[in-house]
């Protein structure tokens, strides 16, 4: 994948920038140019506004992947999930920092910034969101992103984004 092709999506992949329909209020991720929910799509063209997704959500479905996608070979077995965010959109991403056997539908998770994959030894490194479990009962809010609030025992994991 070319650098430009990945770079142009960074506002979405790094910061969860979605969009919200000014007519019906439905939130989308990734952002959409028109609202599929509204009956008159054309009228929503100018009304789709940027909207920040929090990244908080619950596992809607999940799988433990053993035959990896390209660039994920070193991570098997890994958990891939559909996460329903509190704003509504479902995101596809990995669940990390948890034993695969501990993942279940309904697990509370939040998005975190991680390395996704690299294109060989000399290629581009792709970053984006993965999800980590939220301890229950809910612990006090901690700053999100780049390793903040993560246990020291997990330092140095291969998917940890370089600070």
């Amino acid at each position, binding site marked *: *994948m070319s650098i430009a092709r*990945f770079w142009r*999506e960074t506002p979405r*992949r790094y910061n969860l920038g979605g969009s919200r329909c000014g007519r019906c209020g439905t939130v989308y991720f*990734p952002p959409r140019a028109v609202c599929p929910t509204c009956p008159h799509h054309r009228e929503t063209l100018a009304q789709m506004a940027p909207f920040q997704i929090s990244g908080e959500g619950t596992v*809607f*479905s*999940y*799988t*433990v*992947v*053993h*035959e*990896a*996608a*390209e660039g*994920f070979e070193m*991570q098997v*077995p*890994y958990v*891939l*999930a*559909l996460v329903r965010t509190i704003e509504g*959109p*479902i*995101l*596809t*991403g*990995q669940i990390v920092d948890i034993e695969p056997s501990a993942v279940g*539908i309904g697990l509370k998770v939040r998005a975190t910034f991680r390395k*996704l*994959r690299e294109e060989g030894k000399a290629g581009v490194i*792709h970053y*984006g*969101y993965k999800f980590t479990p939220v301890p229950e009962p809910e612990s006090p809010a901690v700053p999100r992103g780049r390793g903040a609030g993560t246990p020291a025992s997990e330092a140095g994991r291969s998917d940890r984004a370089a600070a």
Partner: protein
Amino acid sequence: MREVAVLGVGQTKFGELWDRSFREIGIEAGLEALVDAKLGSGDVNGLYLGNMAAGSLLSQEHIAPLIADYAGLAGRHLPVVRVEGGGASGALALHQGYLAVASGLYDFVVVGGAEKMTDVADATANQIASATADHEWEVVFGATLPALWALIARRHMHDFGTTSDQLARVAVHDHEMAGKNPLAHYRNRLTVEQVLGAGRVAEPLGMLDCSPLSDGAAAIVLGPLEGARKHTDSPIRIAASEVASDTMAVQHRTEITTLASTVAAAQRAFARARRAPADVRVAEIHDAYTISALLSLEDLGFVPKGGAGPAFAAGDFGPHGRLVVNPSGGLKAQGRPFGAVGVAQVAEIVRQLRGEAKERQVSGASVGLAHDVGGTGATSVVHLLERVN
């Protein structure tokens, strides 16, 4: 709109055809279909070729004129078109051919489907197939085609109590059916224990829940129903050819355990043909993964939502059932040459409706259905076919 009939069918063996090239298998299927239709290549008005990924798999784009050329048709300067819709490419090509004949623009068209999956390593072929999912928002985050179907499977289990044992019975069924199909990739029998014990691909799906990477080609000759008996003793009418689409990514669906594109295509097809699911005696359905077969049967309207797992476990879809599913062995056992699948499915239904399916003949088959899906259901195609008395 004219009534359209299938006049001839052709199909190569499916499997790892290491000694045969893409163009060889494409031509073999096409010429067999023309001979079956008692037509010479000079009678053909056009060619539609279903193919998913020759560019990625073979470094060869622009394949419709390639096949026409090596079939000896270059000098006739025919209109030839490649059609792509992931795993549904073949059925989409058939839809285009149907439109061309129904409109009256062309009289006789050849619809082909061909794919050569084994000229690259398995891992590469799987990556290429995963490009039929949403690359930017699924694959980049670690998804593969089987992983996305596994997400659907897990939710189906959660919502409806479907079990791995029930999923395994789909594979057992398909292999049992393929035992009587000399063109099938796999003709060996499987047990539930073997399916459950196979290596995991994306839990809850294992290796034997997934269809194989196969080479193969199939072809169909279409023509107007009027006058069809000059070409065949048993013309098969296309009662409906319907295509429907849905969101590219699984994550954008409100219900991930339903393929809304399949529901839409099936409802339109049954309405157009003035038929109901209960009229269908034999069906070739999308079963790329065992979970896919359950969604297919539910979304085509053969069983209520959540009912396909128990129905498979009860053996309802075998040779003696009211509805016989995948007499060819389906994608799971006959094989999965992606762009050829949709054409091969219809070829099998035609053989069944003509009464030419030999050992695997379904008795009393007069209405049949073929169902092809691209990716995780962004495209679904349903064809209803009927014997003409």
